[in-house]
């Protein structure tokens, strides 16, 4: 069976501006249409309308558009909780950037946040990994920081990514890794196999690297869609249809 690749973080406005066709050309089956929380707070209706439009265009182009909310600014815990109460059921994926220690710790322990996006210069602690493992969260690396700044800065980002990949291998969490472009424009998008090759060069096995762009994000999207559809009302419970049977494990 051919792999279905997902780029789970592309700015919604970029998708509206042609990145959707570009993602299809590159071989992606699905894209995460990301709205930053700062944008959503200022003009919620505008972005929700744009989301509907991009989704419709995705259907026409044959690209699966996943709605995603990104918490990319350091907010107080109470503020994040209020945001999650309001928006959790309106977005298929919710992620938080590890912009500061408190937000990272909160993102790891709150089950409503699905993905922790690693920003260069930040790290995860032992307790964070425990929550990530228990709550089945995903850890995300982005391609965009590798394109920004001078050579030295980019080398530092590469070194951090290599160290994180090594840590995830030691902790047996490579199946939780997602690699996305984090693109704000067309030029940051790359084909999935080249992105996987980059992860491979950083120390991950090639199959695991391909999984970080296909199986890992796709399984998250499926889980969350099942939750929103009521098929999984609470963690560990799945409502079976009439023709479905409980599989032997």
């Amino acid at each position, binding site marked *: 069976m051919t792999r279905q690749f997902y780029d789970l973080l592309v700015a919604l406005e970029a998708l509206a501006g042609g990145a959707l066709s570009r993602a299809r*050309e*590159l071989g992606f089956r699905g894209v995460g249409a990301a709205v930053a929380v700062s944008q959503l707070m200022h003009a919620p209706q505008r972005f929700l309308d744009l989301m509907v439009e991009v989704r419709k265009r995705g259907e026409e182009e044959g690209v699966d558009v996943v709605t995603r909310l990104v918490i990319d600014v350091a907010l107080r815990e109470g503020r994040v909780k209020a945001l999650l109460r309001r928006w959790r059921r309106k977005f298929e994926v919710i992620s938080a950037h590890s912009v500061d220690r408190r937000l990272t710790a909160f993102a790891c322990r709150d089950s409503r946040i699905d993905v922790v996006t690693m920003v260069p210069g930040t790290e995860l602690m032992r307790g964070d990994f425990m929550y990530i493992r228990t709550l089945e969260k995903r850890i995300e690396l982005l391609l965009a920081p590798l*394109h920004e700044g001078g050579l030295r800065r980019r080398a530092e980002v590469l070194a951090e990514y290599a160290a994180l990949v090594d840590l995830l291998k030691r902790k047996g969490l490579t199946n939780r890794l997602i690699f996305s472009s984090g693109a704000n424009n067309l030029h940051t998008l*790359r084909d999935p196999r*080249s992105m996987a*090759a*980059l992860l491979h*060069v950083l120390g991950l096995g090639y199959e695991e690297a391909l999984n970080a762009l296909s199986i890992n994000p796709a399984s998250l999207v499926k889980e969350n869609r099942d939750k929103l559809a009521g098929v999984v009302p609470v963690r560990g419970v799945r409502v079976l249809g009439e023709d479905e049977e409980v599989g032997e494990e």
Partner: protein
Amino acid sequence: MGGVRYVVAVIEELGDLTTRIVEAVVEFSGVAGLAKVRPAVVRIYRKKRIAIVRIEREGLPLFRASLAAYPRPILRIIKVTGTLRRAQRIAESLSLPGEVRDQG
């Protein structure tokens, strides 16, 4: 074991392709990496904006990683083959740039 691979790709940025590729590989992995990849542009189909690039088989991941990590898109890889004849056949079968899709 040695061996080469032929990469069929769409040219994303016009200009001296060889220089751009060398720049990207050297920037990512240095001269040692370039020695491992040893890229050479074999053929360019100007109208279709398609190129065939020969690389060392062992250098394929490094070549792809270099293209991914380079800030500007240089090439969009369509297919990797083991023979030049097959690469040419694929390149010739491709139509207009807008219709070219990744074939894995």
